[in-house]
């Protein structure tokens, strides 16, 4: 029963994909001047095949991935402890609230020129940009998470004499994880966006820069955009996979209820 259903879903998705591919191919073959810039799917796939053989794509992909991962990890290393500290006392939470709200609402791409000016088109610049922008969702969600830990759990840990660091590690940490992960999901997407943005706008080496450089070669450009799309999907998928593994305890009771 479940199996047939899953098969149906898969089949449906495959058909959608095929229909889209066919549409693309038709559009690419159109003689209309307005869509002449769109290459045929077959041409894009051929370009993609060529690219996969070269080291240029691998290098660019590697650069984009490292920048994103580095930025995201640093966001975690900064955001979670900072969130813990700001959540420690209501006064801290309330007084920091305004600054955080301001910082996280600055449109992310608007600050690229500033960082470019300060650091030039380097990976360091892209990583700094990511920290400046994607740390906020993690920070905010950590604060929410910590403040929403059931006080009864904390009392229990306290009554058994668990020292502060053990309470943080074994009670506050896991209990606030569902909130923190929401932040991580947002930050991961944001980090990739910023990496590609910095590469595209500021010329930091990576996939975005390659896309920019291949503007005159539409086949290649489309192939690279496809790679960027797949990268985004893979990242989102990886975060969700980790989340559903770590937070099974959180999702299952909800699903059962």
């Amino acid at each position: 029963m479940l199996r047939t259903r899953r098969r149906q879903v898969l089949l449906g998705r495959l058909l959608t994909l095929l229909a889209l591919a066919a549409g693309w191919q038709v559009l690419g073959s159109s003689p209309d001047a307005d869509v002449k810039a769109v290459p045929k799917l077959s041409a894009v796939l051929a370009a993609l095949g060529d690219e996969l053989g070269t080291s240029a794509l691998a290098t660019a992909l590697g650069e984009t991935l490292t920048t994103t991962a580095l930025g995201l990890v640093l966001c975690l290393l900064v955001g979670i402890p900072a969130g813990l500290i700001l959540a420690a006392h209501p006064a801290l939470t309330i007084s920091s609230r305004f600054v955080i709200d301001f910082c996280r609402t600055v449109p992310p791409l608007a600050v690229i020129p500033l960082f470019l000016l300060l650091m030039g088109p380097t990976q360091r610049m892209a990583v700094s940009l990511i920290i400046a922008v994607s740390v906020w969702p993690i920070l905010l969600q950590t604060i929410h998470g910590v403040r929403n830990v059931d006080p009864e759990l904390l009392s229990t840990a306290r009554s058994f004499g668990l020292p502060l660091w053990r309470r943080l590690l074994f009670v506050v940490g896991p209990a606030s994880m569902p909130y923190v992960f929401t932040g991580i999901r947002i930050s991961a997407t944001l980090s990739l966006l910023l990496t590609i943005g910095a590469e595209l706008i500021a010329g930091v080496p990576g996939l975005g820069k390659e896309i920019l450089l291949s503007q005159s070669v539409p086949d290649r450009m489309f192939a690279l955009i496809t790679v960027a799309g797949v990268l985004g999907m893979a990242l989102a998928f990886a975060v969700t996979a980790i989340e559903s593994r770590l937070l099974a305890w959180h999702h299952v009771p909800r699903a059962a209820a």
Partner: protein
Amino acid sequence: MNATPAVQLRDLGVTYGGATGREVLRGIDLSIAPNEIVCIVGHSGIGKSTLIRCIAGLQRPTTGEVLIGGTAITAPPATLALVSQDYGRTLMPWLRVGENVRLPLRGVGLARAVQDERVAEALSVVGLVEAARSYPWQLSGGMQQRVAIARALAYRPQVLLMDEPFASVDAQTRAELEDLLLTLQRDLGITVVLVTHDVDESVYLSDRVVVVGGRPALVREIVEVPISGVRDQLTTKADPAFIACRTQVLSSIQASKDSGSAVGG
């Protein structure tokens, strides 16, 4: 009364919501000897959980002090374990039952094998060996309550505080757990303070029953239970001494209600 009391309350009072707030407890003086079992009974909402949270060091009394083993406490003492009334919310939902029971044993210098042994023993004592690898939310309320009890037992406290610990289990299991508590208390020599609504239970378990009542709640009466030797569900509950105590506790609760409403009205 020459030994240091295991638990001592001196003029303990609690007022919620600052100085103008609601006074729940006033002038509670109570001294509990080592190895004693004391039950606290009283009407719902009278302040029993508040009292036990103060003894556990989880809540600062507004007035007075709590002494555990002769020293005034400001934080939960390590020698003490609490089974809270809201037991379901005290189990970590991300830990399996066995790990929940183990949590307080970690980091106190016990070898892993000793921890395993204690966890297994505590779970078998409450009849939950098969549930060790389940998550708390996969268990019924009564089973969760027994996990909370197992966790406290595995910790081997000197003072065990229990807030209506048997409220969610069936009568048969309840009787078994009561007897288990008596056995453990005898074997391990622990001091037990237990809150209950059930007058029979309070008399059956206790050396002394403390009746609290009124608004604010005071200690209304302390009923000594003069039943010596090993207690038994059938014979003890038919014992004339048991019945006399039961009547005395019941009437004391009744009286505290009348006087309470007189004060309140």
